[in-house]
């Protein structure tokens, strides 16, 4: 299929946003999942509910919240701009932040479930053999939760590919900067006689989503086979 430069731009941007969103939020997701799986504290259930909010809130509300917090004149964005020169609103980096926020619950859930399923005695055995906590985490916990980590990351990646509501609210749909496949499709739907272009981008969406799921399934299976006891 031959794509126009505009289409390539949207495809490339979508992938870049999704990859940056996933890689950028992965360490935070691992940290949060670890706290939820390994520690007990009062109010934990509230934290868990808050973390899942992006799953159930209308995405446009999440996008608006991002605008209020991270916009140029936002509560945090104001300082980011003035003191660090970082602007997120209406930039592709902002699209990555929106995608990361929307995908975060998926990632945390996947990683947390695999942390929960690790036999604590296995970690106890590693500690008894003389390994400090961080080494137990790196050599036992993390490798054993790899399939869950991967599936969480891929779900978040898929969520990022399709993210629309929060993105368009927070960073709008600027060609070449924040116009991802989803917002490009939406823009084309408002344009007369663009049906064939809409279909082409939809096809790209389907192919991207399908391959990311397929690859993750294969990786997870390979991982589980390796970890079977």
């Amino acid at each position, binding site marked *: 299929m031959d794509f126009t430069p505009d289409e390539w731009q949207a495809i490339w941007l979508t992938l870049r946003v999704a990859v940056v969103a996933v890689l950028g939020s992965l360490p935070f997701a691992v940290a949060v999942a670890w706290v939820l799986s390994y520690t007990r504290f009062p109010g934990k259930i509230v934290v868990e509910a808050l973390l899942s909010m992006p799953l159930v809130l209308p995405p446009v509300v999440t996008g608006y919240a991002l605008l209020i917090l991270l916009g140029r004149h936002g509560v945090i964005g104001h300082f980011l701009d003035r003191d660090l020169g970082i602007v997120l609103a209406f930039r592709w980096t902002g699209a990555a932040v929106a995608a990361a926020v929307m995908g975060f619950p998926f990632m945390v859930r996947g990683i947390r479930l695999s942390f929960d399923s690790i036999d604590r005695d296995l970690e106890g055995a*590693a*500690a*008894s*053999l003389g390994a400090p906590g961080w080494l137990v985490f790196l050599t036992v916990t993390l490798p*054993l939760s790899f399939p869950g980590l991967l599936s969480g990351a891929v779900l978040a990646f898929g969520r990022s590919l399709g993210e629309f509501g929060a993105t368009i609210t927070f960073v709008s749909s600027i060609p070449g900067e924040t116009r991802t496949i989803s917002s490009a499709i939406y823009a084309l739907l408002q344009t007369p006689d663009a049906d064939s272009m809409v279909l082409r981008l939809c096809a790209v969406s389907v192919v991207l989503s399908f391959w990311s799921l397929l690859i993750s399934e294969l990786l997870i299976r390979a991982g589980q086979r390796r970890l079977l006891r």
Partner: protein
Amino acid sequence: MSGIEFQARLRLGDFQLDADFTGAERVTALFGPSGAGKSTVLRLIAGLLRPDEGRIVLAGRTVFDSAAGIDLPARKRRVGLVFQDGLLFPHMSVRQNLLYGPWARRVPRPVSFDRTVEILDIGKLFDRAPRHLSGGERQRVAIGRALLSDPAVLLMDEPVAAIDLERRAEILPYLASLTAEFPVPLLYVSHAMEEIERLAQKVVRIRDGRVEE
């Protein structure tokens, strides 16, 4: 000098442990029905559980003393643990499992390595993954892994319970030659008396979280 001095109290939900015993110099058997608290005692000794109060001394070294505020973390207790199902690291080869202890503590491969491997007869298994081992092989590797971490005491939690009856006879002789060769106090948990009588110099009976005299 005895290998293990144990005195601890712990409340875990409905279960209450209040046990006090001193191990033999070499092999001590902890004997009792399931649910009596045997595994809990091992976890307390290993530092995987913390007593509400008590005092635990391993080979002359105090690893826990609530009155004195001593509570060494598991990694500093020098306890060799062998659980019922081996608990080998499933993502590592047999060799990596065996050398995990020395590697984690950044000490050279122990001089006893070859001899340990020989006694346990696990040399042929080095490159295998734990899932490709039989139950008996898995337990022998687990015992080797525990020994190679240079433990001050060995704790075994029903190490042959997961192995079929006719195969158990394969592993008991290994245990006997190990206890003869390595002068490490061994606390051996079981609910089957005939295993214990062959090895132990002292039997501690435990029931409902209490030591029976």
